[in-house]
């Protein structure tokens, strides 16, 4: 076992370890699994990394992230050692400059990193892609997402009221991770669409505001479903932020069947939403934003997506119900989704 690089503390038992972490603000408010020297070493050994191996560098404050700190966060969150490659891939993705980790962490906008997992690793870890997919109940979904939050809290100093200046935040700031339902989808997986080799395990990380659930169970027309998605996005453009960037949409099986029967690919859906998710500046006047509408030409049309490729289409959710979710970006293109392969 390599000597840990982090300072250590001796505590009487697991209860006292949790008390220490709670008292120091080193957790999210929920109890932790104590990151003992032995457990952290076991996690690092599972991925063959030395404690001081640099996983990534946060580009603004130039924090060089050692593997040991990521392993500590994963232990604390309740991960198993075989989840660590997914957590490490997500950390690497968040350290890419286009993700804008510092901005999304510090902003009053209060976004959270959403993690979408693709590839065989979903099955080997037993990740959930179906019932209650954006909610509770799956250990890998819950703890992988939570590990990233604990990493942001302790490694980046994303402490609410300190570096984290969120006005509201949202529940996804405890954990926000799902798998795509590749086995029950007619479509290419998200990571494959974004350039990963078919069959590769990968994460896509995207800083999102709270999910907005929509319902349309009264049509068999794919365009109708796409219109409902676009309407939710237009509402977000008017009531939250008009700026274009990535959006994600989680498409449930009931909607996927309608798209599949009509021969719509993910690309067809992206193109339709790109065409329809547009607002003019003038429409701000209908939602109480008359004060800012005239600052520029009010007839200019703004698109939610810079191009159809900006829409992340994720097949997930339980088998019944015409419920989908729109996940808006933190702030236009200031933070973009990043896809990274998982080193298994």
């Amino acid at each position, binding site marked *: 076992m390599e000597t*840990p690089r*982090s300072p*250590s503390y001796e*505590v*009487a038992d697991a209860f006292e370890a949790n008390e220490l972490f709670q008292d120091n603000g*080193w957790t999210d408010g929920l109890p932790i699994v104590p990151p003992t020297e032995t457990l952290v070493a076991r996690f690092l050994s599972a991925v063959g990394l030395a404690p001081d191996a640099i996983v990534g560098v946060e580009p603004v404050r130039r*924090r060089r992230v*050692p593997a040991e700190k990521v392993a500590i966060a994963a232990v604390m969150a309740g991960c198993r050692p075989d989840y660590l490659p997914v957590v490490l891939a997500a950390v690497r993705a968040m350290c890419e400059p286009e993700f804008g980790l510092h901005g*999304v962490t510090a*902003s009053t906008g209060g976004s959270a990193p959403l993690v979408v997992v693709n590839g065989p690793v979903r099955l080997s870890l037993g990740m959930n892609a179906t019932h209650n997919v954006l909610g509770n109940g799956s250990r890998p979904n819950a703890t992988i997402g939570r590990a990233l939050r604990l990493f942001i809290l302790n490694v980046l100093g994303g402490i609410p009221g300190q570096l984290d200046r969120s006005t509201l935040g949202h529940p996804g700031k405890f954990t926000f991770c799902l798998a795509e339902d590749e086995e029950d989808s007619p479509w290419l997986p998200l990571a494959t669409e974004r350039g990963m080799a078919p069959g590769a395990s990968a994460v896509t990380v995207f800083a999102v505001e709270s999910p907005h659930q929509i319902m349309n169970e009264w049509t068999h027309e794919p365009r109708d479903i796409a219109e409902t998605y676009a309407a939710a996005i237009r509402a977000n453009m008017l009531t939250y932020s008009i700026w274009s960037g990535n959006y994600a949409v989680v498409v449930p099986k009931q909607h996927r069947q309608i798209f599949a029967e009509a021969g719509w690919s993910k690309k067809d859906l992206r193109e339709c939403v790109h065409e329809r998710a547009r607002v003019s500046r003038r429409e701000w006047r209908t939602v109480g934003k008359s004060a800012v509408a005239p600052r520029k030409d009010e007839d200019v049309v703004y698109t939610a997506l810079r191009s159809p490729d900006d829409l992340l289409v994720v097949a997930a959710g339980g088998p019944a119900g015409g419920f989908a979710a729109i996940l808006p970006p933190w702030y236009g293109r200031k933070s973009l989704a990043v896809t990274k392969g998982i080193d298994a």
Partner: protein
Amino acid sequence: MTLRVLDPRLSAEGEAARLAAPLASLDGALVGLLDNAKIGTARFYDYLETMLRERYRVREVIRRRKPDSSRPVPPELLGELSAADAIVSGIGD
């Protein structure tokens, strides 16, 4: 049997930032105003610039605006401010 748990935090690397020595007076000074590109900063700096010139008799004010509020200041923009005796940097909203 006791447990030995590891500290989850990452300490900042390098030297701690130090405040520059304060100017004895703003009279005749060259002051830089770095705008963080937030919506209210320009108006606030308009007021501040007037105050600096009229009440504190600064010689010159150099104003620069970051291209992106959530990213660091580009080095060339910092270079343009480097001649200033003092710089006011906007943070937050």
